[in-house]
């Protein structure tokens, strides 16, 4: 129990962010036209490519001779980057087709 209280007091900032971000996420996506469901899903999916940051931070504190971790970490970076780069590129491609339309 004491450890849980300690965890909360140590991470108060993070808990604030957590609470506000939950409500923010609910509010941002209130009314979305059907046409944007797929691009929005794809775009928000690309945002979860942020996971890449975690892999970078962990690999930076890994001892340089710990090859198992380094290889796992590099894989983590590769997959995270595919998620981020691929996600934004695919979303851009989908939205580009709507834009082409607007100009005509």
């Amino acid at each position, binding site marked *: 129990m004491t450890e849980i209280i300690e965890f909360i007091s140590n991470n108060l900032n993070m808990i604030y962010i957590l609470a506000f971000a939950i409500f923010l996420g609910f509010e941002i996506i209130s009314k979305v036209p059907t*046409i944007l469901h797929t691009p929005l*899903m794809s775009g928000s999916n690309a945002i979860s490519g942020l996971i890449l940051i975690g892999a970078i931070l962990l690999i930076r*504190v890994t001892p340089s001779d710990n090859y198992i971790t380094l290889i796992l970490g590099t894989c*983590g970076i590769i*997959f995270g980057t595919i998620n981020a780069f691929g996600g*934004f590129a695919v979303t851009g491609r989908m939205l580009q087709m709507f834009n082409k339309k607007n100009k005509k």
Partner: protein
Amino acid sequence: MTVFLDLIIFVSSILLIVGLRKLSHPKSANNGNVLAAIGVGLGVMLAIFYPLETENNNYLFIVLGIIIGGVIGLISAKKVPMTAMPEMVSLFNGFGGFSAALISLIWLINNNAIGGVSDMSVVLSNLFLGFVAFTGSMVAYGKLSGKLQDRHLQIPYATVVNIILLAVAIAMTIYFAYHGRLTTLELSMFTVLSVIYGITFVAPIGGADMPVVISLLNSLTGITAAISGIMTDNKLMLLGGVLVGSSGIILTMLMCTAMNRTLVGVLFGSFTSSGASSGASGSATEGTIKEISVSDLAVQLAYSDRVAIIPGYGMAVAQAQKITKDVENLLVNKGVELKYTIHPVAGRMPGHMNVLLAEADVSYDKLLDLEEANDFLADTDVAIIVGANDVVNPAAKEDPSSKIYGMPILDLAKTKNVIVLKRSMNPGYAGIENPLFFKPNTKMLFNDAKKSLEGILSELKEL
């Protein structure tokens, strides 16, 4: 210096929030995507250069990883055909989840699998959710791309099995968290359990419900990013991950509403318990099938006042969107009022058809959503169904024993003539018979949708 770096985190958080907001409005969506990408990019740059307490940096591995991942990501995003978009999103999402799972494994290895209650529960839930998002997305990918069939993935008592697996996973997390350490064997067991749960969680869910599942798994990957943010004390990951997580849940709900299904229904529901009802619906499919020739159809179209095109996944598969647009042009020149009536979940994802038709330069104002579409269809001479099936199945209205009973459909009961372009009599994605094909005002044109439309096009040119 660190104040400056913290400011960058603040800026990229704002970019993510504004970007996501703009992504949900048609006009600003493209800007939103760019802003969000800059936000993530800034965050990644910062993670590379931010000063840490024990730096070994290992920049070689980081740069290598980003280059390899970036090239694979960009190339596959560029190469993927528009039709395969939904499964591509699912694949990318799975990779994100896998990355989260790897991060948890690395944390455990770096800390010799020893940690306090809070650390361990955070890391283990991240490991579990990451693998679930990974294998779940892979199964969804398999189903959408047609590599996995629903019937190959029947799990007896799926709901019970899943509840037991989930309960075991939670119990293991709590036990290991209090225990404070894991042996390699225990870690492997936990990993295997997570991998299996992802499969058994998605496998029994019907192919037609995959969009909802992908949206849910997308939300789950967001949550793993948030948890990874807590693990590595990174505010941007926490914020971005939670945003994706909570907005993803809202998006999932919106999709469920569009399909008139509840989330619980999708996850544990009626679609999965197939087999029993397929026999019962046999009575509704009595009647004869009438075929129509390409030339008859062309004449009928040319002399109609109002024509509706109902696109479905078959249009995507046949790549028939451009030829459809050509047919539209010819008919409009002949004075026909032509609209595309689009069901919210036509195709494999909400909005799939809109994307496809936009690619073929079909104008916005010709696309009708469900309500407008049904008004239009009630007074239409000819409705051409291009590869749609379940979204026009009248069983959803008429047959309470049907698995899709209650789902809103494009109602063709009042439409004078219904023409179905279809390759064969095989049932649609939900795997159920469609009594529409046997109705007196329905005629079938069996062929690849693109070939049929090309035939119609050349006949129309000669009229």
